[in-house]
């Protein structure tokens, strides 16, 4: 029987399509988590109020922030899950090698991030409509966005979600390399935060969130997120080269 020659890119595409079909549960969990996030958002993300002799007022802010945060956590966990043996071995029942497996995973994470980014925007609207009907407000002020701002908004959400997915993927691969990382990483993370806060002047978490969050130029923000994500993903690929393909 003659040998077949295959091109890496073709196989990446096939693995990617296989993943989109077979990891369908990821999308189901996305919908449930968004519904949960909408429910949690009903209290409003911010509130201020005041009163004088004859009037008192209260201002509630309703935004999609909680939905975005939930999506970031969801992406983080999803990325960890797809590095586990059960998912990794699925690839090797068909044609693949390790880099192809990684590339198709990254493509998959990128697509779910984009999907999640868009759906955050859409579900924010759903949420606002629900607030309009369910809360007895006297007056509603709604920000209107121009096309460029909502495009930036969707892209920024996508990038944040992708950043968390990359971090999850990196941690997932570390845990696959050695089970001990499942204990070491949380210990260092929370330990670090606590140690940092002991002095009464926490800087670590603030600096990390400032690095991304306080960036005013969208372009620079995108570059920062992408560079950090790519570093995380490339290290994941590097680390996994120390492992056997399938036991």
């Amino acid at each position, binding site marked *: *029987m003659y040998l077949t020659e295959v091109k*890496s890119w073709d196989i990446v595409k096939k693995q990617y399509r296989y993943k989109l079909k077979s990891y369908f549960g990821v999308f189901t969990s996305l919908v449930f988590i968004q519904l949960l996030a909408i429910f949690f958002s009903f209290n409003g993300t911010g509130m201020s109020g005041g009163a004088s002799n004859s009037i008192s007022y209260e201002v509630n802010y309703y935004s999609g922030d909680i939905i975005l945060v939930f999506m970031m956590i969801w992406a983080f966990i999803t990325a960890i899950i797809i590095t586990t043996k*059960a998912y990794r071995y699925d690839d090797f*029942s068909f*044609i693949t*090698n390790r880099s192809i497996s990684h590339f198709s995973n990254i493509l998959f994470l990128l697509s779910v991030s984009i999907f999640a980014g868009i759906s955050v925007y859409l579900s924010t609207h759903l949420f606002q409509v629900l607030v309009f009907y369910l809360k007895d407000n006297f007056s509603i002020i709604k920000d209107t966005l121009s096309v460029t701002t909502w495009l930036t908004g969707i892209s920024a959400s996508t990038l944040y979600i992708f950043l968390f997915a990359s971090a999850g993927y990196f941690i997932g691969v570390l845990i696959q390399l050695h089970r001990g990382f499942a204990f070491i990483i949380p210990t260092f993370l929370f330990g670090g935060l606590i140690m940092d806060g002991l002095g009464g002047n926490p800087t670590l978490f603030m600096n990390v969130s400032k690095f991304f969050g306080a960036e005013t130029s969208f372009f620079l923000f995108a570059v920062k997120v992408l560079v950090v994500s790519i570093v995380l993903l490339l290290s994941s690929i590097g680390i996994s080269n120390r492992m056997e393909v*399938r036991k």
Partner: protein
Amino acid sequence: MNVVVCNNLTKQYGRSKVIHSMSFQLAENKITGLIGRNGAGKTTLLKIIAGYLHHSSGDVQVFSENPFNNLKVSANTIFIDNEMSFSQGLTLKELLETAGSFYQNWDHDLALRLFDYFSLDPKQFHGNLSKGMQSTFNSIIGLAARCPLTIMDEPTSGMDSGTRKDFYRALLKEYIAHPRTIILSSHLLDEVEDLLEDVLLIKSGEKCLHLSIDSLRDYAIGVRGKTEKVQEWIDRIETIHLQDIGANLSYAVVKNDRSIKELEDARQLGLEITSVSAEDICSYLTSKTKGGIDHVFNRG
């Protein structure tokens, strides 16, 4: 052309050597049986050939390339075992279609006909199948993929005897219609004997024998008779197996390279010479002690 070439192949887990400097070659378009006891290193060897595991030292070549993490080898090899994992999100029918999209030689028509014959439910999920059904499904993928190197690691585990026979027949028919290199591992040589051309017998990680099935059948002879006569005859001959079969009778197995005179002597001593089945030869050759399991119970 040799499809698989191993030279001094060694695999270590920590300090224990699972594969111990093994050298052999598997020729193209032959069915080779990999036979060995539990823990002999069959699965490890097959996983190295399939490119799943790193070898520790020595050299292994599949299609003249190092198989580990190699795309060309992966595209031309299929490894079927009962640990094969398939996505829980796809039904069996969808899995067949996915497999079809990956393997260029895939015969979808054959896959569907086998699928029907073994009455698998297309809407079922792989994880919900019984062990035997899973093995059947995996084997269907292995047959329909028509990979130039097809590796099957105990493909029939869990199948009932009817399904086993059907599967071996299907394998043979497929092989005749589309010859390919097949490595079939099993600890039941009896079952696969009629299928195999070559046998690679391994014992605790080392190559024991690699020869054609016909030479294996003629490899040894059995001698049965009074214990002292048997002892007398095998005095200067190396035995493969010696067993006390009660009533002052013994059974010895020796390599089939005795001279005519020696065989004549045996008859003079009143010994009965028999042929030994391939299955028995393998189990005698791979047993740890010459006396077999009886040895454990003889404390005296």
